[in-house]
Each structure stands twice: as C-alpha cells, then as structure tokens.
C-alpha cells in the first residue's frame, strides 16, 4: 500500500507540476484571474451594494447561492453527527458523589434511582475535581467571547469576518463552557431541541430571505427587491439583506458546531465528556 500510494502521489505531483509550467507568475497583476471578473468586482461592488468588504459582498450577494448551500452543508454535518452517533439508551454505569464526604457510589443497574437530595451529585466516570481558576476565568471570559462573536457577525460588511466566523466563535464559547465546567452544564442550558431548531432556523432565515425576494417579484436572493418591506434607504438595502443572511448563517453554524462537539465527545449520550 505504501509503494502504491507513493506512485499515485508522484504521478499526481508530476501532473500538477506539468500544469504549473504554463500558469502565470505568482502575484502577476496581469494574469487572467486578476483581470477578468476581479476588476468588475473591485470597481463596481461599492457602488452597487454599498459594502466595502468585497469578500462579504461577493460571498453573500453575487455568489449568495453558493453560500446558501455552504450553510446547508454545515447543517448536513450537524444532522449527520446526530444521526450517526446519537444514542438514546441510558448508560449502564452511573457514578454519584456524596458532596460532604467525597464518597463515590457506583450504580450498575440503570433502573436504580437515587433519593433526590442536595448531597449527591451525578458525575462523570473520568471525574477530576474542577479547577477553580479555570472555572472563574472562563466564566469571566465567555461573555466577552460571545460579544466579540456578535461583533464579528454584525461587522462583517466592513471588516474581515461574517456569519460563518462569528458563528464558529460563538459556538466555541459554548464549547469552552462545556470544557471548563462539564458537559452536563452545557446540555442543561442549551438543550438539544434548542440547538436543532436553531440550526434549521438559521438556514431557513437565509432561504426565507431569498424566497421573500422571489415573492416580491425579483430573482431568488435578489435583496434589492426587499426595499418596499423595510423603511430604509433603498440604496442600502443590499447591505441590509447581506446582514440578515449573515445572521442566519451565524445562528446555524453556532448550533451545528455545538451539536458536533456534544455528539462526538459524549459518543451521542449527552451525559459526560471532556
């Protein structure tokens, strides 16, 4: 297999090297890639959409159809992790800790119930005492990370960033919560229903904006057609449409990242993790 792989790799590399001979030089301003479409985009985007970040404008408007499917791909990934890993059977072994004394109880029968009370807490198999420094620092940090994520989403028109990056950052703030406390803390606050509804809703916002444009008599995703719906400067309407779309992407990506993490780390049982 190693030799076989090596031969394939060398063949591919050779083919690519051969193809590279006729490519224009790296960074050549006169190459076809930098002149044909690129010039149009650079010269007309600000005038047509009022969005200074060209990447966002092309991403969410000119090639918005691509981005819609990109979001759908993310949604697919979340759903795939749910479908492949989610395990609704209760876990056989459970561990409880008596808080005042630190004694651990190991339950082998899933039917056994513990008398409700404050002195026992359900815990993970690989339990380690949680570190106060980590907990405190994360508790302070998480809100700031989330605000930054919202800023990235909202400011995507003017600076690097956008729905996808913001969504990932927001999602990772939630993942940080799961890591610094434990998975149950996260699952209790952000339930599975909440996540899956948000994942679908995010993409639905995107598609819905497009369909709304279609209902107003334009093409699919033609934000310019939404002008009568919004009491705003009609020249600015495309930027607003892009913002709406980015928010949808952000919501979907945030939810999906958390879904993937929770399902992988707990093998689909949503009980204990890293």
């Amino acid at each position, binding site marked *: 297999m190693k030799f*076989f*792989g090596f031969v394939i790799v060398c063949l591919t590399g050779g083919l690519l090297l051969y193809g590279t001979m006729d490519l224009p*030089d*790296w960074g050549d301003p006169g190459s076809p890639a930098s002149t044909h479409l690129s010039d149009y985009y650079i010269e007309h985007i*600000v005038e047509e959409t009022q969005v*200074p970040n*060209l990447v966002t404008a092309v991403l969410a408007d000119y090639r918005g159809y691509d*981005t819609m499917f990109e979001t759908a791909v993310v949604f697919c990934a979340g759903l795939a*992790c749910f479908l492949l890993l989610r395990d609704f059977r209760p876990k056989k072994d459970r561990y409880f800790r008596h808080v005042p004394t630190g004694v651990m109880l190991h339950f082998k029968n899933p039917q056994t119930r513990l008398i409700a009370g404050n002195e026992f807490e359900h815990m993970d198999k690989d339990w380690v005492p949680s570190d106060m420094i980590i907990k405190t620092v994360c508790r302070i940090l998480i809100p700031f990370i989330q605000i930054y994520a919202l800023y990235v989403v909202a400011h995507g028109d003017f600076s690097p960033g956008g729905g996808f990056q913001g969504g990932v950052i927001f999602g990772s703030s939630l993942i940080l919560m799961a890591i610094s406390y434990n998975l149950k803390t996260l699952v209790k606050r952000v339930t599975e229903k909440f996540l899956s509804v948000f994942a679908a809703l995010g993409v639905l916002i995107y598609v819905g904006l497009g369909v709304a444009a279609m209902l107003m008599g334009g093409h699919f995703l033609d934000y310019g057609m939404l002008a009568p719906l919004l009491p705003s400067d009609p020249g600015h309407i495309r930027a607003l449409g892009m913002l709406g779309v980015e928010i949808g992407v952000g919501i979907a990506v945030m939810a999906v990242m958390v879904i993937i993490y929770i399902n992988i780390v707990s093998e689909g049982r949503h009980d204990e993790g890293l």
Partner: protein
Amino acid sequence: MSDILPLIVAKYNFWLYIILMMIGLYAMIAKNNLMKKLVGMNIFQTAIILFYVSIGYKHGATIPIIQGGHGGHSAHDAVIHAADYINPLPHVLMLTAIVVSVATFGVAMALCVRIYQRYQTLEEDELRMRVSERITHE
C-alpha cells in the same frame, strides 16, 4: 539551471502547494490509522485552499476591503483602481471550501467514533482482520 531559478522564484508558492498536497494525499492513501488519514485529508484540502489563495494574490495590492468605503458614502468620491486591491473571488470560493472541509471532517470523525465503538480499534489492518473474522464466523 539559470532558466529554472527564476521559474522557481516566480512560482514557488505553486510548487510548495504541490508538495503539501502530495504529503496530504500520501497520508490519505498510505497511513494505517484512520485519524491520521483524516488529518491527511485536511492537509490535502488546505493545500488546495493555499493554491486558490495564491491565485488571488497580486503584487502591489492591498486586502480586498475598500478604504474610505465605511458607511458607503465617501466611496463615491474616490475612484477605485482595480490594481490596488487583491482579487476577492478566490477568497470567497475558499471560505466555502473551508466550511465544506470542516463539515466533512466532522462527519468523518463521527464515523470514526462509531467504528471505534463497534471494533475497538482505528487501525486499518486490524479492522480488516476483524471484519473478515466476523464473516468467517457466520
């Protein structure tokens, strides 16, 4: 030799992307551990992204965010020269490609976890052995 040196300098980015791609592809084909294969897959995809980003680069140009375009008012006054800004299109394409690659990565990892649950190993040869054992047992 004197021919080749300028060629390398002019295109070294393309050459190095090919090397990275070969590393990734080799890991995908020849490595035995499924996780290693996944990492190889990601290296392979990142190499392609590097290729696209190299396409977009332009000497003497800046990042594709129009200066003075903030708020969308002052931009009308200044004339925008295409030569001043990097081509935004490859960046857009690659944003999509990164998202696709992370989605594939997530799904593949979920599958790995599931395979480990069933067979207790991630080595390809051991997996093959266990599958054939199972078939002969039937």
